[in-house]
């Protein structure tokens, strides 16, 4: 009798599960746990977007412990695990990325964009990466072993938006199974921006272009800062209602910050609320790192396409900046700030500034690059709105 109890206990060990002796578990779980440890390594040692990659990595590990049922329903008790509860609460419903976006809005300074609105076009140009990657995903599907439908392709494309919450929101709406690899790709490449972008920037610009000095930004009044989120919201309401959740929450956070009479709400959005949601969101996204959806050629395809998306976005941002200089030579734009249009706030803007100072240490581009950088956030949300409005009606 004790023997049978010990046997019962042995059958409930993780080892039993890793060896594939329990239904639904196997060595794939072990591999995914190792992937989780790699994410922790990248986050902690390499400092890759640690807030998200620590939580995603840990969520991946917990969810892959055999018979831990942290992210699924325990078949014995019928009770959902705590990560499944969090997932159902905030990812399945889309609530968590929206709340994160409120906090992002409350942390964003649109001042540089208001001072120089034409940098919005750079933020628009850099979204080309999204659609090229989308097309690439559909093309790659001709390769045996890689299969992306239109929903998957849209989710993969949005990696090129270089904006974590937007990528998670779109994927949770279109193709939740791919949340794991897509979120990991999005955050990893955002962390890799200082490595991905500079070679492209140097290749596509001349030294003279990189030395272009831009006019100092004019001061922006408090009233303009208050009216700007309302202006964007109005444009969104008239033109693209499907972007309401993303653009609306971003602009809500920004208005709460800028209006000056709701500072306690702004403070909570940026801190307590954002941190709580980040913890829950990271664990939940990590729970989608399942062997069956991760250990296949599709994931490889996603990683390749994510890199393509970032590169194309960088390129088109740079090229449009050069085109703007041709069309309007009186107000020169340093083309390096075009690459900041991919978003990846504020990393991409810092990279633009740093590459600029290689050519002229006295040329401070950071503030100028913040314009296209935050424009890229709006641009990605607009692109997300198009994907969410059109893709479901195409299938």
């Amino acid at each position, binding site marked *: 009798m004790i023997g049978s109890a010990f046997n019962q206990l042995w059958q409930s060990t993780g080892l039993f599960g890793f060896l594939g002796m329990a239904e639904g578990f196997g060595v794939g779980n072990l591999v995914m746990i190792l992937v989780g440890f790699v994410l922790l390594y990248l986050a902690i040692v390499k400092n890759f977007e640690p807030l998200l990659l620590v939580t995603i990595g840990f969520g991946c590990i917990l969810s892959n412990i055999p018979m831990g049922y942290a992210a699924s329903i325990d078949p014995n008790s019928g009770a959902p695990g705590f990560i499944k509860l969090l997932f159902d609460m905030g990812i399945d419903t889309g609530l968590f990325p929206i709340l994160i976006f409120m906090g992002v809005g409350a942390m964003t*300074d649109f001042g540089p964009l208001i001072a120089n609105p034409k940098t*919005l076009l750079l933020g628009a140009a850099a*979204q080309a990466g999204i659609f090229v990657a989308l097309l690439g995903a559909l093309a790659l599907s001709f390769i045996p072993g890689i299969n992306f439908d239109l929903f998957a392709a849209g989710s993969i494309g949005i990696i090129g938006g270089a904006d974590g919450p937007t990528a998670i929101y779109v994927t949770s709406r279109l193709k939740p199974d791919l949340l794991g690899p897509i979120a990991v790709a999005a955050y990893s490449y955002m962390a890799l921006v200082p490595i991905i972008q500079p070679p492209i920037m140097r290749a596509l610009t001349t030294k003279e272009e990189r030395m272009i000095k831009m006019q100092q930004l004019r001061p922006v009044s408090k009233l303009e800062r208050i*009216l*700007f989120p309302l202006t964007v919201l109005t*444009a969104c309401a008239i033109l693209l209602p499907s972007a309401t959740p993303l653009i609306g929450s971003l602009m809500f956070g920004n208005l709460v910050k800028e209006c000056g009479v709701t500072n306690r709400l702004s403070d909570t959005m940026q801190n307590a609320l954002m941190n709580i949601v980040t913890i829950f969101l990271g664990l939940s996204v990590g729970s989608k790192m399942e062997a069956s959806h991760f250990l296949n050629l599709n994931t490889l395809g996603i990683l390749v396409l994510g890199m393509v998306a970032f590169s194309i976005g960088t390129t088109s941002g740079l090229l449009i900046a050069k085109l703007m200089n041709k069309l309007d030579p009186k107000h020169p734009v340093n083309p390096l700030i075009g690459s900041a249009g991919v978003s990846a706030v504020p990393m991409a803007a810092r990279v633009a500034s740093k590459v600029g100072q290689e050519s002229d240490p006295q040329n401070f581009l950071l503030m100028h690059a*913040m314009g296209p950088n935050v424009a890229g956030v709006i641009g990605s949300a607009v692109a997300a709105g*198009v994907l969410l409005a059109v893709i479901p009606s195409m299938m």
Partner: protein
Amino acid sequence: MVFLAQLPKEQLVAQLENGVILMILGITTVFVFLTLLVFLTKAMSAIAKKIAPQKPKAVVSSPAAVTASASSASEADIAAAIVAAFAKSKE
């Protein structure tokens, strides 16, 4: 490594066609929307100047304050940590 069943070729071609449409549609919309926003922002600034002419209050804020992503809050964290450390060290 899991090998997925290949989708039928006709579906792949149809998808690709839809993808091209999506691309044209998407890039167009993004450009139209953000171009419109350029004009709306300029108009907004003009109106703001009329309403409150002599209040160009804040210089565009310093680089340190310009952050829009969760990941960039670390400086604030560090500042808080320093302060907390000081407080503790004086106990």
